[in-house]
């Protein structure tokens, strides 16, 4: 049970590293969907292990919101944008991946300092969530396309959910539902913004917002 749980937590981390490596938008959305599924499976294991009832609801809500509705929305936006294109980044992909490896190292060193805390499924789940958070933040900064910045945001949200379920048995249900609704609205708003940028600049680079236009 514990091994399986830490395997799912590991998969969340591995999928976010792969997300850094993927040069295609559609593949990145697929990876994000898979990551949300892994996260919800992890929450299910926590629910079975601790027997807290609201975690089952949390599993269901995560699966539906993050695993189905948000990816479907993103796929629709992708279809509206049209052409499949490579993701531009500020640094090259290999150096970004090595940086994410550094984040894993740093967070594993940090986690050894947390000696007083009890973790449900071992300390590695916390390492995984912390490094996923850092990788998501890095993706927000280094990618030039607005669309993949939405993806970075989603990865960070997944990491926070994982962290909430690693030390304690999740957040209160009302907080969780609020966060999920928040994500949905933010994805909606940023996709509207994305389509508007595309209409006025015929491209989805964030940099094009820097120039003035009549």
């Amino acid at each position, binding site marked *: 049970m514990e091994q399986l749980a830490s*395997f799912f937590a590991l998969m969340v981390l591995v999928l976010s590293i792969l997300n850094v*490596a993927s040069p295609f938008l559609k593949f990145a959305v697929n990876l994000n969907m898979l990551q949300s599924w892994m996260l919800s499976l992890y929450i299910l294991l926590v629910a079975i292990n601790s027997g807290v009832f609201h975690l089952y609801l949390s599993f269901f809500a995560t699966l539906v919101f993050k695993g189905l509705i948000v990816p479907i929305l993103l796929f629709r936006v992708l279809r509206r944008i049209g052409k499949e294109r490579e993701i531009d980044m500020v640094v090259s*992909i*290999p150096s970004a991946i090595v940086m*994410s*490896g550094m984040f*894993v190292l740093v967070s*594993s060193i940090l*986690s*050894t300092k947390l000696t007083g805390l009890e973790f449900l499924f071992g300390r590695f789940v916390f390492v995984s969530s912390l490094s996923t958070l850092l990788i998501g933040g890095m993706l927000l900064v280094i990618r030039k396309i607005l669309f993949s910045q939405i993806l970075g945001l989603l990865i960070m949200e997944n990491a926070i959910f994982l962290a909430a379920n690693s030390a304690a048995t999740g957040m209160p249900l009302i907080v969780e539902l609020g966060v999920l609704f928040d994500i949905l609205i933010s994805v909606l708003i940023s996709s509207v913004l994305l389509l508007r940028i595309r209409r006025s600049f015929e491209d989805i680079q964030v940099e094009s917002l820097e120039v003035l236009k009549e």
Partner: protein
Amino acid sequence: MNLAFGILQGLMVLILAPFFAGFVHRLKQRARGQKGVSPFQYYRNLYKLLKKETVLSKDATLVSYLAPFMYLLPHILLGFMMPFFYGKPLLAPTNPILITYLMALAVFFLTLYALDQASSFGGLGSSREWFLSSLSEPAFLLLLFSVCLYSKEWDLSIAFLKLGQEVQSLILGYTQHFSVSIPFLLIISLFVLMLAENARIPFDNPETHLELTMIHEANILEASGRHLLLFEYASHLRLTVFLSLISILIFPYIAQEPFYFLLAFALYFLKMLLLGSVLAFVESINAKMRLFRLPNILSVAFVLSLLTLILSMGV
């Protein structure tokens, strides 16, 4: 007794190596809809090459005569070093650095051969070969280190043996700290490294001689006759060694007593056929990648092996 079985294990792997390569080749051809050559075709190729004469360019020096043998020798040593299916190989104490060094030594002589013939493709091929292998070797080293750290043993043959005992205890029902994540990560990153080091499809396509894409073939373009035989046979052996490493990780059953030798060999053979099919499948569904996109995959493999190292330190 142990000595005899150690030698027997190495010889069996040496003899079977062209068969495994031929099996993968045949599966790939069948997947493309061709009729496919027999899996024993590579033995016939090697026999044909044995009878041909060796032609060298007039600029060739002593290096060209030595390099093919020096490319084969590390692979033969590796064949006698790894515990493929019998727990006590001939050259017993092996450690990660020795294995990685032998792999690098072989590549060194391969590229030296390519440079020595002074053809225009040689320099191109050797620089590309080092580009790939300098990226994949750190990952390979970290990966072997994490196997050692996980089983707390520097000798790789004993480390794999311990891994096998853990899997047996998992099947028998009493397990303490067996981890699912570590073998999973090891298999994935080792598979990527196997594709890179053996010139397999997302990295290189050894079946074509298109000058823009070839990496491994550009190095042995000038080789003929006996030299080509040595290079071809050594590359089959290299593929077999890598596949065997993965097969040990997938289901580590290694015989400790001579009594179980045949059973372990049968299991090993089955695992190799399975892995060959997986390899052929992966090669069939992928296309050759651009050269400058290869560091992306290799750096993922590097970070995954770093992650394995962190996991096996028991964070």
